[in-house]
Each structure stands twice: as C-alpha cells, then as structure tokens.
C-alpha cells in the first residue's frame, strides 16, 4: 500500500466526521435543550438594540437545578435557516450572550452552553458593528463568570465564533462534533491556496473529538447513538443529559470561581511535541 492511498483514506475518514457533524438531520442545540431541560423560557435581545436569532439564550431547569442557557442555533427549514443566518452570529448575538453571563452571575445560576456554529458571520455589517470586539468581550465575560459553567460542542465548533461561548469549567464534546481553528474549507484555502483540499486540511488539523480530551481542551467525549445523533435524537439526549447533570453536580459541590477557570485556560500549552515534555518546577 502506498503512503498516498493511506493519506487519502485518512482524509476521507476525517471528512466523514465533518459531514456527520453538519448532517442536515442532526439534532440542533434547541432539539437537545428540549430533550435535556425542563421549563425552558427563551429570553430575547441584547438590551442594546439588537436580537440575533443565531444565538439563543434562556432560563430552564436541569432536573431540580435552575440553569441559564446559551446556544448556537442553525435553523432547520429554509425560512428558519435564513432567519438564523445558518447559525452564524453577529455582534448582537455575542452581546446577547454577554447579557446571559451577567444575568447568571447576578442570579447565581449555573450556565449551560450548546455550541454548533460554522463560524461568526463574515459580513460587512458584522464588521461595522465590531464583530471582533464583541467576541473578545464575550471571551472576557466567560472568564469572569462567578458560577459553574458547562459547555458541550454538539456539532460544529467553528473558530473564534465558537470560542465565545465555549470557555467553561467543563467542556464536553459529542462523538461526531469538532472544534477547529478555522473551517476545513478556510484552512485549505490558507494552507494549500485551494479550498477544494478541505479533506486534507481536516485530516491535518486532527479534528477528532477524542483529541480534544487528550490535549486537555475538552473533558469528555459524549457518545452518540449508533451511526450518529441524526438517527436518534431522543437517544442522543438520553446519552447527553446524565453527563450534564454529573458535571454540573461536581462543579456545584466543588465550588467554582472564575479564577480557577482562568487558570484552566492559562495553562493551555501547545509547546510539547511529545507527551513526555513537562513543565519544570521553579
């Protein structure tokens, strides 16, 4: 067998996972919210003049525990996809998320975040209204949130637009979900000057969910029903819900503060080429 065909097979496998995470029948954030949480009430608007339907916030219960929810939402029907802009958030969406983090802090509510976003919207109006600033401020809001915070990547975790609602005390990733520095198409355009080489880029970026756990970026891979979550939404929620309960219970029991969360993200390294390279004491 040639190395070339092995590389091509690896690229095909990597691409299959991306297609599963983007499957049109995959349960979206609100499908999982409906199946994992009770008494969900959506809240609207950033209280600064905008309401971006690509990011949904709300209040709910997870069993006995009240929670604040933030979720990326793509939209299923053609109309809904248009309205929600395929889940690609504008600055108003990030400012709405900031409102949710402030609300959770004030009312001492733990936060649950559901991530499924191709990326923050790359458009003129988004830039004019400070897309980069909105994302930066949302990152900061997560790192000062005083209450327990669990995030789960349920589909696509696209770049800075995903990071803005990802920086939790515990990060879960569904089996066929991924987190990436740039979409495989964008990465291919940058690395190979050819967006068509997305399969190769996906393989090189090593987007398997399990890698995030190995690298200390996520805490756990949440299994999906055989074949993928798109085959059985209830089954996917049944596998996810107890993991949310487990991690939230642990965080509440341990007591959480924002300083510990900042420490978690401060420690991300990325230097060591091999696992044996460790930090020396001082």
């Amino acid at each position, binding site marked *: 067998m040639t190395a070339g065909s092995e590389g091509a097979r690896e690229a095909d496998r990597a691409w299959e996972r991306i297609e599963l995470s983007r499957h049109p029948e995959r349960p979206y954030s609100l499908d999982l919210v409906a199946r994992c949480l009770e008494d969900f009430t959506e809240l609207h608007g950033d209280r600064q003049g905008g309401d971006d339907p690509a990011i949904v916030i709300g209040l709910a219960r997870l069993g006995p525990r009240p929670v604040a929810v933030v979720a990326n939402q793509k939209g299923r029907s053609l109309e809904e996809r248009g309205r929600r802009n395929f889940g690609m958030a504008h600055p108003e969406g990030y400012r709405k998320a900031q409102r949710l983090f402030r609300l959770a802090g004030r009312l001492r509510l733990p936060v649950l975040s559901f991530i499924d976003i191709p990326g923050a919207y790359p458009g003129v109006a988004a830039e004019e209204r400070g897309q980069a600033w909105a994302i930066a401020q949302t990152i900061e809001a997560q790192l000062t949130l005083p209450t327990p915070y669990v995030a789960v990547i349920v589909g696509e975790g696209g770049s800075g637009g995903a990071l803005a609602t990802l920086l939790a005390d515990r990060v879960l990733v569904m089996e066929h979900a991924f987190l990436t520095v740039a979409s495989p198409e964008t990465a291919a355009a940058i690395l190979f000057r050819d967006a068509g080489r997305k399969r190769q880029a996906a393989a090189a970026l090593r987007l398997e969910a399990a890698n995030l756990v190995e690298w200390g970026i996520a805490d756990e891979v949440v299994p999906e029903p055989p074949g993928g979550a798109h085959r059985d939404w209830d089954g996917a929620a049944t596998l996810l819900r107890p993991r949310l309960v487990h991690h939230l219970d642990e965080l509440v029991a341990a007591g959480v503060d924002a300083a510990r969360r900042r420490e978690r*993200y401060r420690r991300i390294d990325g230097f060591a080429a091999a696992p044996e390279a460790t930090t020396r004491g001082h």
Partner: protein
Amino acid sequence: MAQLVTPPAPAPALAPALPTARPHPITGAAAAQRGAWTCPACAAAHPLAVAREQLFVCPACDHHTRIGARQRIAQLADADSFDEWDADLAGGDRLQFTDTRPYRDRLREAQVRHQLPDALLSGAARIGGHPVGLAAFDFGFMGGSLSAAVGERLARAAERCAQAPVPFVCVTTSGGARMQEGVFSLLQMAKSVAALHTLADAHMPFISILADPTMGGSIASFAALGDVIVAEPRAMIGFTGARVITQVTHEELPPGFQTSEFHHARGLIDVVVDRRQLRQRVIGLLRVLAAPPGRAGTGAPAA
C-alpha cells in the same frame, strides 16, 4: 523579576549558531545596500537616512510601512532600555502538522530568516522614563500569527506587568490564528485574555496599539481589550478579511472598510496616531496612567 512559570524545554529550534541575518524583507532594507528606500505604496524613493528618521512612514504619501518587532521596540522604548523576556521560549508542534511541508521546517526557516524565536518579542522597557512591559508582534514572521509560543509570551508579559506592577504596552500586527497549530492556536485567544485579567486585578493599564494588519483571532481577543486602543493610520483591522467577506457574501465593501479610521468613527478605536507621534502619545498616556493619585509608588517615572 521572578519568572512565574518555567517553560517546557523548547524545541531544539533555536540552535546557537544562526546564519547571518538577511536584509529585512518588509522594510525594503534590501534597498539599504543602495542607500535608498522605496515606498511600497507610492514608489517614491527616499534616502535611507530620511526613511529611518521618518520611522519608515513615507514622507511623500504618509504610508505607514510594516516594520519588524525589533524596529518597533527601538522606535518606542528609551534607548537601550529594552530587556527581553523569555528569549528561549519557542517551538510547539503538538499536531505534528504537515501541509505542503512540515510545519517544523517552516518554523525553523522563519526563525533563521527573521532572527526571532517567534512572531512576538516582549520585555521590560522604559518609555519616556516610565517602566513598562513592552511587547511587539512581527508580521514578517509567519504573518504575526498567534502560535502557542506567542500566546505564552504574551500571557507571561501581562502577568509580569501585573506583578511588578507596571503598565503593559503591546503593539499588534497579526493575521490571526496560526493554522498549523490548530486548536492550540485558537485557545491562545482564551489564554491571553485570562492573563490580561491579572492586569485588571492589579489596576494596571493595558495600552493596545494596532498596526497594519490586525485581524482574526488577535483582534477578537487581547488586542480589542486594551483599556486604551490606539491605531496607526490606515491600518487594516477586522475579524474577517475583506477578500473572504467578498467571496462569501458578494457584498460591496464601503469606502475605507476596516481601516483604523473606519473603526474610530464607529467608537471601536480610541485614537488614530501617526507613527511619528506615537511615542510621544504613549508617553502622554503613561504620564496619566502610570502614577495616578492614590496609587503612589507604582510605576512612578524613574529619576
């Protein structure tokens, strides 16, 4: 100053004997050998001495040429005051990444070519006598992209400033994430913001200076969180580059889109300052911020 965290042994990338530096590819230093400098925007030729005196801003058209990290530091800091931090902190290839070539080779080549460990230099410095932490990106080094080493240098710089305590001044010129480091690059956005928080705890200012270009993950994290945000004229600044926006949305771009002035008009940048006045403006800010009443003994100007 105490080192907060000892880095893992760096990859053996920075071998002691680096070949002699080549002329800087961006500042037109190749022309230096002819004693002339050509503006890359208007093609006007000027004597090198004049270009240098003008800080590589074209005297004919005011174009602000991209300059390297060492030049930037030399322009901003008091003479001989810069004391580099983390000189041995480099490397990082957790993904063992290969596109058309192994990333390891690309990184090594950039290190040799630019005589830098990575795309950011940081250190203790004085500006107008005020002790500060000073960091500067080098766009020539892989587009000033946000590698794990860059993120770690940035984080340590912010933390050292908080500990000292002294103000932190960072000049950013960065294309954003470094693709070859994958999610490790992405997470540097979180790391840098987490580290900047120590400055807030210490009530020390962060002066964020944006130079051409500042894009993607860099402006969507630390660079947008300056207590004061300063930008050089006509620098391109934004989350998504204009070319990608046009490709994806087919939208028409408004005049001056994503320039410093464009963002300034929308309340996203505090002040746009010509490079030739930048040092004086920073000194002015430091006179206010480095030693306000009620914080006696911190960051007072040196005697």
